[in-house]
């Protein structure tokens, strides 16, 4: 076997040194009654060529966003990935390393995470960001737990109906056996209903969580939401599923959010059927010591030279065990590296311009679709690169019709939003050319594509 270096001669020598005759004796600590008495029922070992042939066959059965015209978003976004990224993350000093618990030989990972934390702070307008969480959904759940922890006795959390449905489900799972009451805040014109929010807030409310942009593509009025939440003594959690929007729109931090979480997949990660992504988590200074997850901090070595270490570990499970701020043990290491490289390449100007391009493309598609007979744009206000179309025909039928033209027109909203049974969530990014958008519009209209 190519991954196992042992020759038969070496195995003999090693057994001799150990003082046993057969390998089986090494397993003498396992009682006979606990042994598997047959070989594993798995196929035989394959050559690399055979493995790749089998995997290519499986991969060949899938519909790629580069060969189809895809207008799918909804928490996973098709953006261009610069060639630099895969080359750099393929440095095996990065991807085959462990968690940087030994800082003297992990300065590469540690400095990269320190830079990641800094850029997440700059982008979100917050003071402190951690070294990442699993994804946007679990980061949102941890944000709710943080808010409840920090607010001491308050046990109520309000979730906007505009928050990504998968984030809301994840929050519900995380809070299943924690003493927290989750209450939904309804929408009006696709954004959080402020009047309803004011009614629902009380002195037991620890936090309000909203999407920015929200699941329906709408840009929420965070400043006003923050004012309302703060007036009741609650924290405002902003969950950002499409962080490219922060290249263009005001940061949640400057608008008054107390916790900003989100999904970094847009910044250079392949779609990979939805995972792995990379969750980000940023707070104000006051919440630094109740943060979940790893943190990298700057320090100096014995010679006074700058270096980086994992720090404030007394919050974490390996020290605090059942009293830790979270059970999380890993971060999304390599994916924070991707985000760091992506943001470093795009920088101050590139991120802004890319966001403007996304905005303009989506605006164009929205106008073209709005002009179609029978189609309506569901909401009137500002969107980023996603918007909801109300279709004249059942959405399932429309999708099937367009799929025969190799167009993935968007996500049917009926399952998560029965009130938008005719709703289709359309996402347009820089990866969609005008020609593709025009083809979509023609196909929606029923004309020749």
């Amino acid at each position, binding site marked *: 076997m190519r991954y196992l270096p042992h020759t038969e001669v070496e195995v003999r020598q090693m057994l001799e040194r150990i003082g046993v005759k057969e390998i089986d004796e090494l397993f003498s600590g396992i009682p006979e009654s606990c042994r598997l008495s047959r070989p594993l029922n*798995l196929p035989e070992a394959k050559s690399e060529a055979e493995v790749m042939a089998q995997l290519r066959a499986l991969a060949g059965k899938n519909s790629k966003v580069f060969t189809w015209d895809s207008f799918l978003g909804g928490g996973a976004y098709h953006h261009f990935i610069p060639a630099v990224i895969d080359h750099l993350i393929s440095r095996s000093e990065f991807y085959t390393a462990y968690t940087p618990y030994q800082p003297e030989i992990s300065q590469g990972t540690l400095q990269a995470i320190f830079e990641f934390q800094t850029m997440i702070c700059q982008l979100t307008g917050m003071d402190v960001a951690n070294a990442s969480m699993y994804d946007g959904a679990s980061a949102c759940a941890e944000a709710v737990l943080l808010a409840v922890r920090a607010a001491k006795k308050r046990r109520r959390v309000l979730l906007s109906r505009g928050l990504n449905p998968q984030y809301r489900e994840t929050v519900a799972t995380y809070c299943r056996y924690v003493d927290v009451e989750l209450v939904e805040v309804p929408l009006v014109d696709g954004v959080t209903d402020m009047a309803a929010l004011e009614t629902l807030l009380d002195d037991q409310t620890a936090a309000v969580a909203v999407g920015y942009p929200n699941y329906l593509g709408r840009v929420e009025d965070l400043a006003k939401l923050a004012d309302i939440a703060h007036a009741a003594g609650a924290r405002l959690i902003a969950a950002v599923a499409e962080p490219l929007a922060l290249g263009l729109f005001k940061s949640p931090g400057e608008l008054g959010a107390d916790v900003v979480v989100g999904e970094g997949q847009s910044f250079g990660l392949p779609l990979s059927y939805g995972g792995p992504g990379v969750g980000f988590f940023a707070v104000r200074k006051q919440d630094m010591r109740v943060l979940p997850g790893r943190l990298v901090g700057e320090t100096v070595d014995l010679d006074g030279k700058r270096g980086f270490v994992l720090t404030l570990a007394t919050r974490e*499970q390996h020290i605090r065990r059942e009293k830790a701020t979270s059970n999380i043990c890993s971060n999304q290491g390599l994916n924070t590296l991707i985000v760091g490289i992506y943001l470093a390449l795009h920088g101050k100007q590139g991120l802004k311009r890319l966001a403007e391009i996304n905005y303009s493309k989506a605006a164009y598609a929205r106008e073209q679709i709005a002009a179609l007979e029978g189609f309506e744009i569901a909401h009137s206000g500002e969107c980023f690169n996603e918007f909801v179309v109300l279709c004249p025909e059942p959405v399932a039928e429309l*999708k099937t019709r367009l799929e025969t033209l190799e167009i993935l027109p968007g996500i049917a909203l009926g399952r998560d939003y029965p009130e938008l049974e005719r709703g289709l969530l359309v996402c347009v990014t820089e990866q969609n050319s005008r020609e593709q958008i025009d083809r979509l519009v023609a196909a929606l209209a029923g004309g020749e594509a």
Partner: protein
Amino acid sequence: MSGTEGRGLVLDEKLLFEQSQPGRVGYSLTGLDVPEAQPDSRLVRKEITDFPELSEIDVVRHYTRLSTWNYGVDSGFYPLGSCTMKYNPKVNEVAARLPGFADIHPQTPEALNQGALELMYNLQQDLAEISGFPAVTLQPAAGAQGEFVGILMIRAWHEANGRKPTKVIIPDTAHGTNPASAALCGYDVVTVASDGLLSKDAVAAVMDNDVAALMVTNPNTLGLFESDIREICDLVHERGGLVYADGANLNALMGISRPGDLGIDVMHFNLHKTFSTPHGGGGPGSGPVGVAEKLIPFMPKPIVIKDEEGYKLDYERPESIGRVKSFYGHFSIMVRAYTYILAMGGEGLRRATEMAVLNANYVRARLEGEYDLPYKQRSLHEVVFSEAALANDCHTLDVAKRLIDYGYHPPTIYFPLVVRGALMIEPTESESMQILDEFCDALLAIAEEAKTAPEKLRMAPVRAKVRRLDEATAARKPKLRWEREDA
């Protein structure tokens, strides 16, 4: 590599922000082919203060230089106990990057992504066969999230049966994630002392009808197989509890013993340990969970099923605990693990386990005597020494740092907590006898240095990018981001 001669080219590298030059760009964007549109100016942000501005070569050099300060499995031996730092096959990386896997959107209709679902279904089946559990969910993002899912299912099962037990029993050798995960499910943690092995008497002494579950790691973090496991499972089941297994050490059992056959009710896998997917400097991992028949209704949704029409995502699971993350799990990690299983085959996986156990026992045989071995039972895939035999008040930390000077990543240290100054070595199956001999020679040389030149240990490392770092100040005055000095 051993010895302490020579020193490579170690480059210094500023932070991205310190290299930034106004107007420099590292991107190329396709020109806009639709009319320019502007949002309401009141919503638009000003420029992102101090965000970097760099060219492509700046960025490439920056990260390339940073990479040279790291140490990966490809750099050399990485004997981290309980982390299973085995070789990460390169074909796994190629497979995960196939466009038919990397460029597929999770909201694509299931009928159009049958290959992805088939791969997930096959991986569920393979993991079930390896572990002896009838069903496996691939959704959890990492081992700790797998634990969380497992305990959630246990609690949901109790509640479905009208029970409200309040405690979870955890041995003192357990990973810290175990008690943290139990607490997240609202349980009180009861720690039970083990003398190397968990005895049925020790479990019986703390068992009552208020115990929801026992969490056990098998083999445990001392590398010892919990030989009473069947009787322990029976004891817990008799009082209405369930048994959770932490599968971190599954690399010791493939093809030898299956946790699902032993009475265990639920177990998480670490694809990034046992199934060769890279650790990535801290993640992403993947933590599938196998369950006994009675817990199947409570599994997270969706799971992948197969019927006459093909492969599907099943959401119709009314008793499910729900979801713990977006979409279906860490798919690209699943591709890597599946690639590994295909390459190894059933027999190859068993051989990997055998070689991992052989390697650990070889290291043990070579070091026992010079290093104190507190638990003498036959160990499996890892061996734990204590600092008791070190001369001149040298400590485990000093040995670990000195190993860096000899060109090795240190073992896991100060864990498990039951061993004073634990030095936990897990060589994995990837290392040859020559590598192990060189490593043992280094450790023996360090033990000798402790006797004759202890300052060499206390001052170590001297050959790394930086010397020992001031972690106390880092925690007392946290500096968690870069900020402009004059700001």
